[in-house]
């Protein structure tokens, strides 16, 4: 039986990095076959960058990644909503892994259920 490495990445670790460095780090780790749980996740621009960079990495033995996080709170809401709700638009817990090993079973706005398999 082969093992799977699960990394719980603190916000403290990721927030020290710049956007590109962060995305690079995540892709490199995932390519090693790790499953990563990010305490705070990425911001929308970083997510877009992650998708873009993942696409450049796809080849015959790497099909990309599975990534799941929760929808952000209503940052598109009213002016007063934004003013009084401090965590509006804040980043959320995120799980990322290789597409061939991490499968999302179920997801709604309060629960992410995944299946992790060995290669």
């Amino acid at each position, binding site marked *: 039986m082969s093992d799977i490495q699960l990394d719980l990445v603190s916000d403290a670790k990721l927030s020290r990095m710049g956007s590109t460095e962060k995305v690079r780090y995540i892709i490199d780790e995932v390519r090693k076959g790790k499953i990563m749980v990010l305490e705070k996740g990425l*911001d*929308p*621009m970083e*997510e*877009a*960058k*992650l*998708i*873009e960079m*993942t*696409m*450049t990495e*796809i080849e*015959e033995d790497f*099909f*990309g*990644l*599975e*990534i*799941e*996080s*929760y*929808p*952000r709170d*209503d*940052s*598109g*809401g009213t002016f007063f909503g934004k003013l009084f709700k401090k965590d509006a*638009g804040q980043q959320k817990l995120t799980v990322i892994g290789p*597409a*061939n090993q991490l499968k999302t079973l179920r*997801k*709604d*706005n309060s629960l992410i259920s995944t299946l992790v398999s060995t290669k």
Partner: protein
Amino acid sequence: MGVISQFRNFFGKLFKKKNACIGIYGPPNAGKTTLANRIVKDWKDDESEPVGSVSHIAHETRKAQRHHKLEIESKGSKICLDIVDTPGLATKIDFHDFMKEGMGEKESKQRSKEATEGVIESVKWLDDLDGVILVMDATENPYTQVNVTVIGNMEARKLPLLIVANKIDLPESDPEAIKEAFPQHPFIGISALDGTNMETFYEAIAKQFG
């Protein structure tokens, strides 16, 4: 006419010159091209206008296609938009999926390669748009990263967004689930295939992007 409204008029005209450019986004197979083709058919008299190809196999659109100067009219108001049909966004592309659809290995790998380039083009387009129509398949779970990412990017850029639950003609569709998932944004359920609710869709377009 007061000075202020004259002023407004002047700037209004100045800014109206450039068409707003609206991207149609969503996961592969959501029906983006079917919708884009319908919009073009409804508002372009020009028979020669090219339409995008539609397929049940994912990543059919692998190059963004821009439709210029569509004059959309709804309830007396008229707006002129450019519409960009983008390749479906994904975080993974496995060529085996195309082989399962009956394509040969070589063709599948080629489609996969082009699909990755298509996704990159879609992401790049996010920087050049004035708004987004986010199309979701109402028979699928709306809580996907792709949806969260597109919405997040529009919110961060403070650009208007219209969420479309497509395929409501299918009995297993659940447009309400999409509305509940993203309650903070305007939403409409349609069938791009049979044209259900298109009137209301154009009304929403005029309201959101006009």
